């Protein structure tokens, strides 16, 4: 490592409890955020911004949401896609019916809150059932919600196609949603949500609510006897997790695919985000980002690598390789490192700190 933790003394608990207690880490993260907010929009091409960075950031938000529920609170969910759809459809409904002076982030947040409400309802079974059985209950949420949004035309303002385009909305004259919006403002809009939601997730993880979630996850009986109420704790995890998923779903519709459609939030999406959380690292904010980037970028990488070496692989073979790599990675992480890429990164840091000595 280029810096060491030895000799960095803290003299107050406030200093020790900062989000990133080591100054170098702090400066590094600030530099990354500034780079992402200032340099990337200047140098990034339309392809990079619209087809890679925006979807990765949005999926990171959804992965953060599922990580709160599964990684921190220990409640397995397969309903992520359904909760994302709830956010997307409700924010579409609000965006198309609200007065013009309302800022553009309002429908996104209302979509998130609606998803949170739905999450609470489908979180109720978690008070009685655990593990696989709960996963099946949330699977019901997935199928029911997608069916609901297709069956009730109210959500899409009775659109004939059922797949309406998202309306253009602007901040300070820059369009940030819809098909006509430029990639830079869109990207910055998504980035702002990502940064705030990541900071909030990190803060909750180190506060009372995060400790309650982890206590319920690790030993629910002891947690209850300490005075943690399982009802409130589990439902708050469902609500906040679904809020994140709802915001991600709204952004996915408004800033990425530019339309509201049920196929974007199918069961495949739920699994994709679950894999992101498993591979990235359960119970880690960093892991949500690493997992989202890994899962989303791997297919793009696999599509391009053979061409660099002059190999012409058929598309179907590439797709099959993709499945095999994902399958292998998921089995590897579940068996070898359940804490995922985030933990591997931590181990790498610890080893490098001692390098070249073994211990």
């Amino acid at each position, binding site marked *: 490592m280029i810096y060491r933790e030895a000799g960095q003394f803290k003299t107050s608990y406030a200093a020790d409890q900062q989000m990133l207690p080591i100054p170098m880490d702090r400066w590094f993260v600030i530099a990354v955020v500034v780079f992402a907010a200032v340099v990337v929009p200047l140098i990034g091409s339309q392809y990079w911004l619209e087809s890679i960075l925006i979807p990765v950031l949005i999926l990171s938000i959804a992965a953060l949401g599922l990580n709160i529920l599964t990684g921190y609170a220990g409640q397995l969910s397969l309903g992520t896609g359904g909760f994302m759809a709830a956010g997307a459809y409700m924010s579409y409904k609000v965006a198309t019916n609200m007065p013009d002076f309302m800022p553009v982030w309002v429908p996104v947040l209302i979509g998130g809150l609606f998803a949170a409400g739905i999450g609470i309802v489908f979180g109720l079974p978690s008070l009685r059932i655990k593990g696989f059985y709960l996963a099946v209950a949330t699977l019901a949420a997935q199928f029911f919600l997608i069916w609901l949004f297709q069956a009730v035309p109210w959500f899409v303002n009775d659109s004939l196609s059922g797949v309406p385009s998202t309306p253009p909305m602007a901040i300070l004259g820059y369009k940030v949603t819809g098909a006509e919006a430029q990639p830079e403002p869109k990207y910055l809009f998504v980035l702002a949500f990502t940064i705030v939601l990541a900071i909030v997730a990190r803060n909750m993880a180190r506060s009372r609510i995060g400790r309650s979630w982890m206590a319920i996850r690790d030993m629910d009986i002891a947690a209850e*006897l300490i005075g943690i109420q399982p009802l409130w704790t589990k439902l708050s995890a469902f609500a906040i997790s679904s809020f994140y998923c709802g915001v991600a779903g709204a952004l996915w519709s408004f800033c990425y695919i530019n339309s509201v459609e049920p196929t974007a939030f199918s069961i495949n999406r739920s699994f994709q985000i679950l894999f992101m959380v498993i591979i990235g690292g359960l119970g880690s904010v960093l892991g949500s980002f690493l997992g989202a980037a890994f899962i989303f970028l791997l297919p793009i990488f696999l599509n391009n690598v053979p061409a660099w070496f002059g190999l012409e692989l058929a598309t179907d073979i590439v797709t099959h390789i993709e499945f095999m790599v994902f399958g292998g990675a998921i089995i590897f992480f579940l068996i070898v490192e359940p804490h995922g890429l985030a933990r591997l990164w931590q181990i790498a840091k610890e080893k490098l700190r001692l390098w070249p000595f073994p211990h």
Partner: protein
Amino acid sequence: MNTTAQMASGQDPTTGAQERKDRIGDVLLRVENITLRFGGVKAINGVSFDIRKGEVRSIIGPNGAGKSSMLNCINGFYQPQEGSIWYNGKTYSPMRPHDAATNGIARTFQNIALFKGMSTLDNIMTGRILKQKASLIEQAFYFGRGKSEEIEHREFVEDIIDFLEIQAIRKTPVGRLPYGLQKRVELGRALAAEPTLLLLDEPMAGMNLEEKEDMSRFIIDVNEHFGTTIALIEHDMGVVMDLSDRLVVLDYGSLLADGTPEEVRGNQAVIDAYLGVAHD
């Protein structure tokens, strides 16, 4: 105040040494005719006893006597089918876990029940959860009470860490700690709630002599310096006889004896239960 009169007229404090007598106050908790059944099995059969403020009250008995079940009834994890629990002048039938926690009953477990994925510090911080009042927004953005409470409770938790001499493992995930230290962290978590009544379920099981001595020292310190009332389940008779003010002996779910260590040691029924009886 019928209840207080009833409680004050209870059994005389049959404490041991004179200097400890002054410390021990009124009845803090009384279980009355508790019966707990699991299907056809009676785990506890009409047991009554009381615990006075400031004393170390041990519950002993052979395996399966119903000791842990009794603690589980006291802090509301099991709900007995019959009987009631008096605590601080109020009756609970049954006691609920949340009632117990808010009333200052904390406990440790026979099989360690720590939060394995969390650090020692976070584990002990969970003991302060009922004392933290910050709203969700304050926690999410780490300002106001969200921040000040974290620091304030951290200071309290650091005092416990100093007291239990576990400074070096503050940030280690508890899953990686050796058994003896895990027991100590669990005691720390219970102490963080500033309990009035501390239930210790075999705090010294599986420990070597030095660890037992350390743990005994912590128990005595908690009792004498913080004035915490302690209900202790332990199998090491040396420890029990030295630490306790009074003992309850259970056997097959029934009360066998109740009294000072001297009285219990001389009780023929207790000797028979522990050593066995010759059947002619």
